[in-house]
């Protein structure tokens, strides 16, 4: 695939154009659709006026292809990203820039796209329509300019504090699109939160959904859910069923208080509509059977853990420090299994992201995780703790771990995990 990041003037909202950054001229960028085992080669060109990278969020790949701040691509330069999609990693991922201190800005300007990894043998019926829902938000000035206030201003300070958000919500770059479904039909929705700061809490008004997957692919058994909290960068696979013929429902974003009491936005508790789901008047679809068991996930063994890493999230700092790319915060070896004890000591949620390796959640605030799942994102709510377990398989390198509120990451809420051979 050829991928170019460049400045583009696009109509992101009706009736007005905005100067955006775009992959191949579109927001979101093209979907990278691959299968387990594929060898992926992306010829990337940076036509932006600033350095960038492409980070393949959640993909287990060599350090040199991770697109972290260690490997910036300057204006006008090209780079070939190359990796093999590992077996067992089928799932929904995404890509976005990850340059030093500018990630939130670059994503806010429009640089993000989806990655779908198909399984060699998918347990879900192939008849299910596969729909991608890339959630994002933004904020514009009246003339269409994407609103980035000066960081020294009061509004800039609040953006830095909260993580920049906007009232305009998008699904696949569109405001309030419509998905059609037949009565009785089941669709497979792959939902990605590509927002720089907004945590989505989504629900299908009046319906339940079946959650079948998380960041790293399918879970073991479907779980019926009324709503899903999707922190920044997080993904979920959901099975959605059509309603009565000719009816309509709405996918909504429900209020979620992730904020510090000092800077909580006045409109935080507003419910907003994301998408219209319309059940057609066509005759009901033939029933499909959803397998009760999707796959087996082997639990990483806490008895094999050789270290416990304590990661304390303050506001904008991790273990009292801001990011220093010349510093190694955690040093370990390929193949080691470790537990991370993540503690959020402040009154604002901080979503944890680890590059390169999928992890499993052991417990949150001491409560054992109800089911096994592969994760690369974990929301750590205000004043709470979580323990995860991870094995550093295959790839040595310097991997980032950070808060995925991108303004926090850009202001230094990030550390370096060095995995030695």
């Amino acid at each position: 695939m050829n991928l170019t990041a460049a400045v583009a003037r696009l109509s992101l909202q009706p009736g007005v154009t905005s100067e955006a950054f775009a992959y191949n001229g579109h927001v979101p960028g093209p979907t990278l659709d691959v299968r387990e085992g594929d060898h992926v080669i992306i010829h990337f060109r940076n036509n932006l006026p600033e350095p960038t990278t492409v980070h393949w969020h959640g993909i287990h790949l060599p350090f040199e292809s991770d697109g972290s701040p260690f490997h910036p691509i300057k204006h006008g330069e090209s780079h070939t990203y190359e990796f093999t999609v590992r077996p067992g990693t089928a799932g929904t991922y995404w890509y976005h820039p990850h340059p030093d201190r500018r990630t939130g800005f670059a994503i806010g300007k429009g640089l993000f796209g989806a990655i779908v990894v198909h399984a060699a043998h998918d347990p879900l019926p192939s008849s299910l329509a596969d729909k991608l829902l890339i959630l994002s938000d933004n904020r514009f000035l009246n003339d269409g300019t994407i609103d980035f206030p000066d960081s020294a201003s009061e509004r800039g300070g609040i953006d830095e504090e909260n993580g920049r958000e906007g009232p305009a919500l998008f699904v696949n770059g569109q405001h309030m699109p419509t998905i059609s479904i037949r009565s009785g039909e089941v669709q497979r929705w792959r939902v990605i939160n590509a927002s720089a700061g907004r945590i989505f809490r989504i629900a299908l008004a009046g319906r339940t959904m079946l959650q079948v997957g998380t960041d790293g692919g399918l879970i073991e058994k479907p779980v019926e859910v009324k709503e899903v909290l999707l922190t920044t960068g997080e993904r979920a696979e959901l099975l959605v069923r059509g309603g009565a013929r000719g009816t309509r429902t709405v996918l909504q974003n429900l209020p979620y208080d992730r904020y510090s009491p000092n800077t909580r936005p006045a409109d935080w508790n507003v419910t907003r509509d994301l998408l219209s789901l319309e059940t057609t008047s066509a005759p009901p679809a033939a029933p499909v059977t959803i397998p009760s068991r999707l796959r087996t996930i082997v639990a990483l063994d806490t008895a094999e853990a050789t270290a416990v890493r304590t990661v304390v999230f303050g506001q904008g700092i991790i273990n009292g420090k801001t990011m220093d790319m010349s510093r190694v915060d955690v040093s370990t070896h390929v193949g080691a299994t470790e537990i991370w004890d993540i503690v959020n000591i402040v009154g604002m949620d901080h979503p944890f992201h680890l590059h390169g390796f999928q992890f499993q959640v052991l417990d949150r605030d001491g409560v054992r995780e109800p089911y096994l799942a592969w994760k690369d994102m974990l929301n750590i709510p205000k004043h709470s703790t979580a323990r995860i377990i991870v094995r550093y398989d295959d790839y040595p390198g310097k991997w980032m771990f950070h808060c995925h509120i991108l303004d926090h990451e850009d202001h230094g809420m990030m550390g370096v995990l060095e995995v030695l051979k």
Partner: protein
Amino acid sequence: MTRRSTGLLVCLSSIVVLLFATAYRVPAASGKAGPPSDRGSQDQILAGRRLVLSSACGDCHGYAGNNPAGAGFLVGMKDTTQQFRIGPFITRPKNLTPDVATGIGSFTERQIFNALRYGLRPEETPDVQITSTVPGQGGFPLHPHYLAPPMPWPSWRNMSDEELLAIAAYLKNGLKPVRNKVADSEGPPDFWASEYTVAKIGPYPAAPFPTANEKAP
């Protein structure tokens, strides 16, 4: 309206500060801050203990007053009778015991020092040496997050480096950790920056003796 009520509250908090300021008197030691250490000596811890007791930290941060043998000493607020209303905002005394998740256990002594000297919330301020009080300069944050009133750090900051480090050493190493989660204080979006300007709380260090209000002996 918010600004006016905040001003009123800060007036109230100034009274608290004055009361507290008269409650303690410590000899002014001189000297520079040594390198932050995670384990204070016995003498340093005992000096810190004396300062914590004489500075009345326990009046707000717990429910044993200043009796180190009492239950609830320095564990922070347990019920709403211990919280403050500062204008439109509720502020809450935090847990000062060295519990990692709910107290000061994850902070370095330097972060505690910076809280007492500069009023900067340790959970929201990097662990760096600060050499300026101008935002954005000398390690002082561009958008400082100050401790919520009525924490009387504008008085406490006048203690010597050794005294403040002794307090940090005592809190970190001389107390047993107690898990007690205290919700965050509320406050204005600037985290009280407009209330802690030099115009309102004076410079640090204080003007040399004697000022116009003072006379040499």
